[in-house]
């Protein structure tokens, strides 16, 4: 929720993915929450095109892990956003990335990561959720990150009035795959589209060694636990999509000339080390409970704004 008269809030980010297909997606989501915790953006919508309840459940688990930082809505502290889920496609199998962390138990036998998604009704229609999230953003103050197929975003485009809404609100759409970018361009996605070049992901690998270093500081971390299922140095194309969406001026990135509406996201080789450090710092950042944006109460004239200094 944003209020006029408070100045423009940080960028609102819609994150749509096929969570559970690759660990890279979970790492990208943690980078996004890391940026949210630094107040560089606000996560305003999370959805999955992977037709699997566990995919949505995992998204919620990550959201709860960062609870308090996930939404600027009033009274949202401790509450997570509803998770959007595509429900009309072929049922997708559950992958170890999802079943691994979600099946972990505490010593007392209760789940390590609680979530509230047991049935389809515990999720939201992804396209309606994304549309609604955009309605609450200032003009040109939203970005959409797509880390997976274009299923949900194509459905957003089918809603009446959505193209005008996207044109007004969305600064850019950043897709982690060229195929999705092309599909959305063909369907008339109205904002600028950036497609992460495949070389970007393979040029910088997120080290599995972070599990023994940075992630080791957490007693339980849902992204680390997904990573632990198959530890490997993971490609970072989806992390680049997130980081570029929020920090388009970062010197690590460059854009190609546009082909149609699409520009390719390229990497400045000299910035690789700094980029990797940024990924690690953001993905392993501690959750930050952000105070909700709320109209400040009227100042009570009888009370001084600042307590008097102690003598």
């Amino acid at each position: 929720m944003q209020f006029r008269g408070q100045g423009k809030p940080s960028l609102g980010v819609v994150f749509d993915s096929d969570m559970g297909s690759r660990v890279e997606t979970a790492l990208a989501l943690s980078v996004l929450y890391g940026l949210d915790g630094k107040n560089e953006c606000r996560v305003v919508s999370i959805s999955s095109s992977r037709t699997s309840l566990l995919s949505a459940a995992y998204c919620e688990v990550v959201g709860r892990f960062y609870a308090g930082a996930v939404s600027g809505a009033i009274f949202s502290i401790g509450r997570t956003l509803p998770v959007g889920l595509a429900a009309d496609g072929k049922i997708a199998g559950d992958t170890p990335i999802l079943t691994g962390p979600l099946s972990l138990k505490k010593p007392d036998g209760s789940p390590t990561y609680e979530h509230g998604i047991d049935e389809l009704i515990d999720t939201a229609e992804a396209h309606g959720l994304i549309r609604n999230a955009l309605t609450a953003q200032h003009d040109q103050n939203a970005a959409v990150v797509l880390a997976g197929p274009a299923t949900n975003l194509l459905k957003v485009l089918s809603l009446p009035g959505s193209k005008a809404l996207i044109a007004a609100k969305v600064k850019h759409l950043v897709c982690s795959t060229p195929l999705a970018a092309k599909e959305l361009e063909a369907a008339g996605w109205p904002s600028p589209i950036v497609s992460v070049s495949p070389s970007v992901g393979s040029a910088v690998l997120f080290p599995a060694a972070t599990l023994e270093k940075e992630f080791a500081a957490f007693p339980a971390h849902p992204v680390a636990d997904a990573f632990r299922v198959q530890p490997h140095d993971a490609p970072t194309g989806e992390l680049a999509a997130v980081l570029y969406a929020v920090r388009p001026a970062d010197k690590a990135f460059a854009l190609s000339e546009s082909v149609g509406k699409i520009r390719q996201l390229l990497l400045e080789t000299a910035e690789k080390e700094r980029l990797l450090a940024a990924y690690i710092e953001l993905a392993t950042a501690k959750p930050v409970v952000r105070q909700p944006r709320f109209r400040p109460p009227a100042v009570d004239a009888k009370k001084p704004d600042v307590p008097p200094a102690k003598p």
Partner: protein
Amino acid sequence: MITKKTLSRRTMLRGAGAAIALPMFDAMAPAMNSSSIPGKAPIRMAFTYVPNGLDMRHWTPKQDGAFVGELPKILKPMESMRQDMTILSNLTQNNGRALLDGAGDHGRCCGAYLTGVQPRKSFVDIKAGISCDQIVANQVGGQNRFPSLEVGLEDARQAGDCDSGYSCAYTNNLAWRSETQPLPPVLDPRALFERLFGKGAALNPEERARQTKYRRSILDFVTADTRKLQGDLGPTDRRKLDEYLSSIREIERQLEKAEKDNAQVNPGMPKPYGVPADFAEHFKLMTDMITVAFQADMSRVVTFLVTREGTSRPYREIGIPDGHHPLTHHQNKQELLDKVTRINEYHMVQFAKWMEKLKSIKEGDSTILGNSMIVYGAGLSDGNRHTHENLPVMIVGGGGNTIKGGRRITYRKETPISNLYLSMMDRMGVRIEHFGDATGRIDGLNLA
């Protein structure tokens, strides 16, 4: 061999200054007793709106599917109609939310409720959208004397700032004929009566008092027509006619009583002449007239704003002198919460009586209720936190044998309430592709 004499559906009892539409008689169906033909009776649609959200702890049945065991506290008055009602959970009005417009949830939630759009934040330059009831009224209302009826119980101004910069036009109306034209509810029972049965514009109190002194029943003006009609009807229809005319006479008696009481009591505030001092009586009078309007097919579309959104009306009649709105900001204090629940129950008691009446009136093989879709709900769910998701929504009636009741259906989170309206419009014979923020139609309502 066809032997039955048929009667036009538009037959009326006429007399000096009076015209009384009639309910559907068997004799109005085509020859050979077609009253049993399914779908012959008209389908009606009504929206009953209560303000300030509800105490959701006592609204939502514990589990999905068929109702099991006791109904929640607020719904208990509907016990005798548990098979006729469906609770719809998780429906949301996104356009009632702040989005970018800051405070003013009461103004927004009511303005958005049936329009499905975000009302413009202004108290001079109002703008919302055409409400779903008016879309139906525009398309099928031409068949009826009144394409729609707008009814309310609380005297409310139409201009000025009623909520943080939102015009009173948003909090005090449900129906919108156009983006900029709300349709204010009729509050005065006498005005509604005269609208339905003739007599023209409202009179000033002095003239009304003079006329009241000599007033005869409106039925007296149509005696000749009534006698003639009775001769043309079979025994079942004759009984139906007697019951119908008795219900009109009963409304007249209630009106006369209210007016007599009002002449003796100074309410201490501007108030329409015929409004009963007692809330329950007022509720009954207005809903009795809506019932007659449905019965005689004078109108098929009704919006009923029980009290205006954000109202601070006290309920002294049930021992609650506190304002409704302040009470809903209860901060989870038990004493205040209990009072909110009691107000919610009180509203439901009145509503249940109306539903029982609709259910008691036979129509073909069904009842008026069986051929209706009456939505009961609010534009906020939790009035304390001003939440716009998981709104309290109940649909009562069979929608012409198309809706299966007796259960709770939970939809996916954030499902637009506009989806419900699209499904209702379908049943009214109005098929449109887009409405408000709808993403489609809701499923699960059907009989199957």
